[in-house]
Structures are given as C-alpha cells and as structure tokens.
C-alpha cells in the first residue's frame, strides 16, 4: 500500500509553500551530501559525519556531541534517495492539507515539534542505543497523525498491489494512516522487549505520530472553530 495523492482540495490557501519548501530543503541537502561525503571519504570520516549530524540517543543521554542540533540536522537528512523519495512523497500527500489548516509558519513549527518529539521518544525507549538515526519520517508521521485527526474522512488515492495487477483506489485517509501506524507497532514492541534492531526508527515514527495531538495548538482559528463544530476542517 502506497499513498499516491490526496484528492481533496485546499480550503484556506492556494499553495502549500512550506510543504514545498521542506521537500526542497530535504532534497537539496540530500543532493548536496556527496559534496561533503565523496565516495572515497573513508569509513572513519563517514562515521565522524554521522556523529555530528545524525541523532544518536546514547550521545544525547550522555550530553555529548551536538545535542539538539543533531535533532534538526537529522530531520533534514536521509540514508539514500529511496528513503528521501518515500518520505517526501508522504509529506506531499499528507502535508499539503495539514499546512492549509495551520498556515505555513505554524505548520513548520508543528513539523519541527513532531520531529523533536520523535527523537525524544526514541531517546526514552532506546536510551542506550549508539546507532545514529536519520530521516524526516518522525516529523512526517506527525503530519500523518495530524491528517488523521483533521481529515479522517478524506480520501487518499493509494497504490495497492494485492496480486500482479496494481490498483489505485481512493481509500479513506483514516484507513491509510492506521495501516501505516499498525505496521510500526509490532517491530516497535519487539525493539522494546527484545532489543532487536531493524535499522528503522519505529519508535521515532510512533513518537512523531503521537505528537499529532499538538496539532490543535497550531490550527488557524477558522480551522480550529470548524473542528470544534464537527464540520470538515
């Protein structure tokens, strides 16, 4: 299952400036990364780079290294282009209308809050993990959670491949988001109870997702009034 597009129109603004800006920033940083990290950089320099720019729970707990800066830098970096593409696609699908409900600047602050919350939960659960984490997925899960709260009845054009023939029905946003939430829970619990590591920030995803409850602190007044009035935001 892969979300392709949100088929509903915007209500308050005509263009998702901040969503596009975030996609552009993430893409630019990924494209510019080889300038800092050429192929022949060597293992140690690459490791050094990760220790400076990726988010490492063990360093955070020990108050060593870059601290909060790594939380921000890791939010704009990705492991590879596939990682970037899937994240940015999801940001485009779910971010556009969440930004519409908040306004550009408040959306940015919410996005950062979701990213920081993702890192915070990761640090709480995996406090002893020396593995550096990277990616915008924590923040994007926050955006997805916000989408679920604001537009549970919205329709998402989703690519579904059940057999050989692909299909792209318009599925209720609630089901799409809950599906993505569901696939995080078992690996996250496995990490918690057995210490298994999948190389994916499942707890970051959950941390971001749960931070979606804060979306109500960022909604524009009209959208907030609509939410309280039980009418489509």
């Amino acid at each position, binding site marked *: 299952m892969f979300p392709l597009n949100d088929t509903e129109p915007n209500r308050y603004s005509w263009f998702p400036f901040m969503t596009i800006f975030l996609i552009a920033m993430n893409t630019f940083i990924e494209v510019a990364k080889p300038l800092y990290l050429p192929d022949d950089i060597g293992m140690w320099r690459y*490791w050094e780079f990760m220790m400076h720019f990726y988010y490492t729970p063990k360093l*955070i707990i020990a108050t060593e290294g*870059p601290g*909060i800066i790594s939380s921000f830098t890791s939010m704009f970096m990705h492991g590879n282009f596939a990682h970037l593409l899937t994240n940015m696609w999801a940001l485009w699908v779910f971010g556009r209308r969440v930004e519409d409900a908040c306004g550009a600047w408040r959306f940015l602050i919410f996005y*950062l809050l979701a990213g*920081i919350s993702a890192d915070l939960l990761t640090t*709480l659960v995996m406090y002893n993990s020396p593995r550096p984490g990277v990616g915008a997925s924590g923040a994007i899960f926050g955006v997805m959670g916000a989408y679920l709260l604001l537009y549970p009845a919205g329709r998402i054009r989703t690519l579904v491949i059940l057999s050989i023939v692909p299909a792209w029905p318009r599925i209720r946003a609630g089901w799409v988001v809950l599906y993505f939430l569901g696939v995080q829970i078992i690996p996250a619990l496995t990490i918690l109870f057995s210490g298994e590591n999948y190389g994916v920030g499942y707890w970051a995803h959950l941390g971001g997702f749960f931070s979606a409850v804060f979306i109500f602190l960022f909604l524009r007044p009209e959208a907030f*009034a609509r939410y309280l009035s039980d009418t489509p935001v």
Partner: protein
Amino acid sequence: MNSEDLLRQALQAARSGRELTARDLFQDVVRIDPDNELAWIWLSGLLDPLEDRITACERVLSINPGNQQIRVYKDRLLKEQNATHHKRVSGIDEKVQQVRWYVEDGKRDEALLFLQKILQEDNNHKDAWLLFASLSVSINDKVRAYEAILQIDSSDQAVREKLKRFKRFQRNPLDLAALYEEDGKLDKALELYRVLAAEAGDGPEFERIYKNIVRLEDAKIENVRHIRPAFNILRLSIGLPLLYILEVLIQEGLNPIRFPAPDLWIGIPMVMFGSFLLAVAGIRSRHAIWKRWFGDPDGKGSNMARVLVAVSGWGMVLTPHLLLVWDSFVRLQTFQVPFIPWVR
C-alpha cells in the same frame, strides 16, 4: 336632490345607527348649503379625526355664535386635543419600547422599519436614535444617528466618542465588519459586507468583500462555532514554548537535574512572551497591546503595528534558540567522536 331631502335622509340614517352613511350625507348637505347649522352640528359629532370635529364646531359657531352648547362642546374637544398631544409624546416611548421587544424577539428588520416611522414622527427622541444607531447596519446611518443625538444632547461624551469611531469606520468600513466577526456577530458582519459590496461596484474591492461574504455564508451554513480571540491567542501561544522545552530537554540529556542548564531554562519565559506576541499579531483582533502601545483606539492594530509586534515576537523566540544552538556548538568543541566499534 335638494339639501332638505338630503338632510332628511341623513337624519334617518343617523337615527338608525348608520353613522358612516349619515356622515357622507351630512357632508353632501353642507356642500350644497354651507350654512346649514343642523348639518354642521351633526358633523361635529360624526367626523373623525378630532381636528375635523373642532372645525365643524367652529362652523356652527360662525353661523350661530349664540350656540352655547356647541361652545362648551368645542372647549371639551380642545382639551381632549391637548391631552392627545401629550399622550402622543409618551406614546413614542411606548413605541420605542415596542421596538425593543421586536429586537428581543429577533425581528430586527421589523424593528428597524418601525423605528424609522417613529423617527419620522418625532426626530427629537434620543432613545429612538440610539436604538436606530445600534440596529442599523449602515455606517452612514449610524453616523447620522449619532449626529442627531448630539444635536439633541451635545453633552453626551459617549455618543461623541462613538461618532468619532464610526467616522473612522466610514473611511475603513471593512474593519467594522471584521470587528463584528470577532464578536461572533456573523449576521451583522454578513449584512455589512453585503451593504459594502453593493456600494463597492465592480473591481478588486468588490472581489475582496465577496470572498468574505462567501466565507461567512459557508460558516453559517456549516454552523461553525464562534471561538473567542483570547482563547485562540492562548492556544497559539503554547506551541513554540512547548517546542523549546522539548529542545532544552534533549540538550540536557532528558535529565535537567543531572545536567542543569539554568541559562537555557531562562529562555522559556522569553519564548512564551515572544510566542504570545506572535499570536496577538497573527490573530488580528482587538487587544490591549494595540491600545496601550500603539494608541489604536479600536485596539485592532495597524499593519505596521502588527509587523512590529511580530518582529519583536520572533526576536524573543529566536534569541533563546540561538543560545541553545550556541550551547551545542560549545559542546562540539570538546566532542571526541567515539570509535566505530562502540556500536554493538
């Protein structure tokens, strides 16, 4: 038919209780014979209104000045006329009260129509003008009402202030509609937008007003609740301090007791105040800040004032963040990158 036949028929009609027919016949008699005393005597009792009855008495007295009974009757009618005049003045008070009841029943349009009639009858009634000012949507009508009140009572300072305020709204009428919206008076705001749209004609101004009309109509159809601006300011002031607290927690290794950094925590009130200023600048509602800091009498903030407050807000929010980033850089100076085998 001569006047005597008409008089006979008129008397028969009067005696048999057909007053309207009798009155018409007596009027026909005096048209043929203007000095017919008997016809005028009957008309002094049958005519309506009071003024016509008095005129009939005067005709009788001019024909026969010795008619004492009619003289007494005329005096009684004159007294009645005086009393009616007083009653009419107090009657306007009652009518104004009736207008208030209309308003209480939600019949604003009827109330306004009735009030306009009252003001045509007596345009020196202060309460009626006050009510008219409060009920009328048109800014020009409000200004007219307040000017009329000041002509009646030039010492009323509150009305003088209101007049000044609405004269300002005459220049920026959309501001008044926005204020109505802010107070949750959607109907009033919508009505004002419609009046303004009608006055605007074609062009970008009309487009702007039309968008507001559509927006408010949608809100009405959807039955959107009114949220007080103060609540929205409070709500929107929380997000940034929350973000900052989480950042400081991460910077302190989630353990502020073991790794205390009071200089970072001092930033919290700063971020809170900055966030509050940003919310005030963003909400565009009345607030004491606009009144006290910028002397804006309507307390809604000019564009320049809002930009100033927003810039100050960003300054207060970003300064502690810069300190936080500085703290990170200081830490990086002494950071020894752990060896790769550190990863298990």
